[in-house]
């Protein structure tokens, strides 16, 4: 009798504990859910606000009679558009395609920024640019309207962002969820928004740049293997089994070669060789690098020798970065006395035995060509004068830098110091405009620019 009583008590306790456990788990999950939902709704309301602001700002940019005001307003468009990008990417839309809307915001902000820059440099806005601004204003207006339609759903309470993972019959009754409605907006925007070309990184023309230095005729797989074997350094004389393991269809069509140690299944080296002309685009050797045996200068010399013997002449080392026992050295092509930054190759050297364990010539092969260098309209003295009393200049040299839209600009590179900190300033050699400032940070591992 007494034993029964204890058993019942124990059973009751277990049940009570289980119920309590379940309840506390549920309430924790519930409050976590609410926090998430709050974050999503915040992003949603912010997005509406951003779109509204951009629309108003764009109309002001069209109306204002003052260039100073226009610069301010266009800069604000850029900021609001960037915020819209960030808010849109915080929404739980799963793996759905929202790339058109993202791109729309990015282009609108970027375009407005470059336009503000143009005005600041005293250039006038062309009719085509006015039209793009007007188009953007129209687009944001309709986008605003689409989002307001969705906001009725949001105002009703908790939003059904996604179909639940339970019974499909149940979820079918819910109909179109919020995420699907966003996809519909994305598709509409795709049809309405213009494709635009301008001087910024997100311009539509930047994506389709033809590689300039891929020349020659098509090669076979066997030829690719032969070329690949000859290209690598192999100081330890490892026997590799080399074969073509893939064909890539990127900007440059290529064979992918895999180097396996004889008798092993692990790939040591991967290399891409262009199908046209058989240029080695890049390779990486992923072997373990042991203790450092050689110093950095020797490694840089090794890298120099490596590219020289592979047909890259007139290259100058422009920077290096040491990480663990590997150093990555960047070289740029020099035509006459002009250093051409877009034509760069990178070489990775292992500091244990000085072997080259990585190479990347995509920059060089995409951009390299013999240029007709124009006469520099600004003299070096004029450039020096600009910095008198501001920067202690240690070197000025002629360079080509790529701008945001990958267009090449002839510049003087001014290397100088202020308060012990090093800077690189780029002055356009044709019109004297200041194109770029880089702050150089020197660490014990190498130099970085930011």
């Amino acid at each position, binding site marked *: 009798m007494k034993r029964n009583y204890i058993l019942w008590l124990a059973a009751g306790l277990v049940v009570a504990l289980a119920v309590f456990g379940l309840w506390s788990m549920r309430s924790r999950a519930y409050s976590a859910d609410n926090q998430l939902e709050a974050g999503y709704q915040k992003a949603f309301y912010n997005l509406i606000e951003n779109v509204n602001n951009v629309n108003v700002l764009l109309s002001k940019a069209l109306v204002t009679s003052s260039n100073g005001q226009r610069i301010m307003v266009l800069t604000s468009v850029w900021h609001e558009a*960037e915020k819209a*990008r*960030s808010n849109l*990417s*915080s*929404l*739980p*839309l*799963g*793996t*759905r*395609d929202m*790339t*058109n809307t*993202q*791109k729309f915001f*990015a*282009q609108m902000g*970027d375009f407005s920024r470059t336009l503000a820059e143009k005005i600041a440099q005293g250039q006038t806005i062309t009719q085509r640019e006015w039209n793009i601004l007007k188009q953007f204003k129209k687009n944001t207006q309709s986008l605003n309207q689409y989002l307001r339609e969705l906001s009725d759903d949001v105002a009703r309470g908790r939003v059904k962002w996604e179909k639940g993972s339970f019974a499909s019959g149940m979820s079918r009754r819910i109909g179109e969820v919020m995420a699907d409605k966003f996809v519909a907006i994305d598709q509409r925007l795709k049809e309405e928004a213009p494709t635009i070309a301008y001087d910024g*990184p*997100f311009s539509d023309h930047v994506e389709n740049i033809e590689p300039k230095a891929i020349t020659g005729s098509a090669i076979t797989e066997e030829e690719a293997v032969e070329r690949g074997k000859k290209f690598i350094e192999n100081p330890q004389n490892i026997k590799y089994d080399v074969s073509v393991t*893939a*064909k*890539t*269809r*990127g*900007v*440059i069509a290529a064979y*992918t070669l895999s180097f396996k140690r004889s008798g092993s299944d692990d*790939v040591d080296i*991967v290399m*891409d060789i262009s199908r046209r002309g058989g240029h080695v685009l*890049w390779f*990486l050797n*992923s072997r373990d690098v042991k203790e450092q045996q050689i110093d950095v200068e020797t490694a840089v010399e090794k890298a120099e020798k490596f590219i020289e013997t592979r047909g890259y002449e007139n290259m100058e080392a422009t920077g290096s*970065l040491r*990480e663990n026992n590997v150093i*990555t050295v960047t070289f740029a092509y020099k035509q006459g006395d002009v250093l051409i930054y877009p034509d760069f190759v*990178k070489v*990775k050297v292992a500091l244990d035995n000085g072997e080259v364990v*990585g190479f*990347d010539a*995509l*920059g060089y092969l995409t951009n390299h060509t013999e240029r007709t260098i124009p006469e520099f309209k600004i003299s070096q003295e004029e450039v020096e004068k600009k910095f008198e009393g501001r920067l202690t200049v240690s070197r000025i040299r002629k360079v080509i830098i790529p701008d945001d839209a990958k267009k090449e600009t002839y510049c003087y590179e001014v290397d100088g110091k202020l*308060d*012990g*900190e090093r800077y690189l300033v780029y002055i356009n050699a044709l019109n004297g405009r200041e194109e770029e400032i880089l*702050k150089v*940070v*020197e*660490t*014990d*591992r190498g130099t*970085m620019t*930011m």
Partner: protein
Amino acid sequence: MNGLAKRARLAAALALVLMLAAALFLESMERSAQEAAAEYAVSARASDIELLARLVAAEASGEPYAGQVAVAAVVLNRVKSSKFPDSIPEVIYQPGAFESVSNGLIWARTPSRTSYNAARDALNGWDPTYGCIFFWNPYKRVSAWIWARPIVTQIGRHVFAR
């Protein structure tokens, strides 16, 4: 006469010492400013590497090395692209963008030395995908629209597309 020369010599010596001290002081100030800047730059890069290596470990461990570099490169290509947000954390933590964030693997798995190397190679510019912004496992179910993207290459168990 003698005293004057002595005093002049003393003054010169004193001036020299003072100048030396000033130079040393300036030099040390310069160096500390440089060191502070260096530390800042290194830590910015270090956090990029850390986050990328975590994603590589969670999404591509067991993949060939080039496949691991490729996954890190896709993240960096997204940062550069207009179609995705513009920082590494925003790209990685975009809701639904990476399976390993949804299932928590990104925090559960410790990156190996290989994951760090792959992250570094990608940050240093190696891109086996030639600018791809999507990758997926073709043996798993993915949204239909993704298959419509132009495929550049397949490395290990991942397909990469622009």
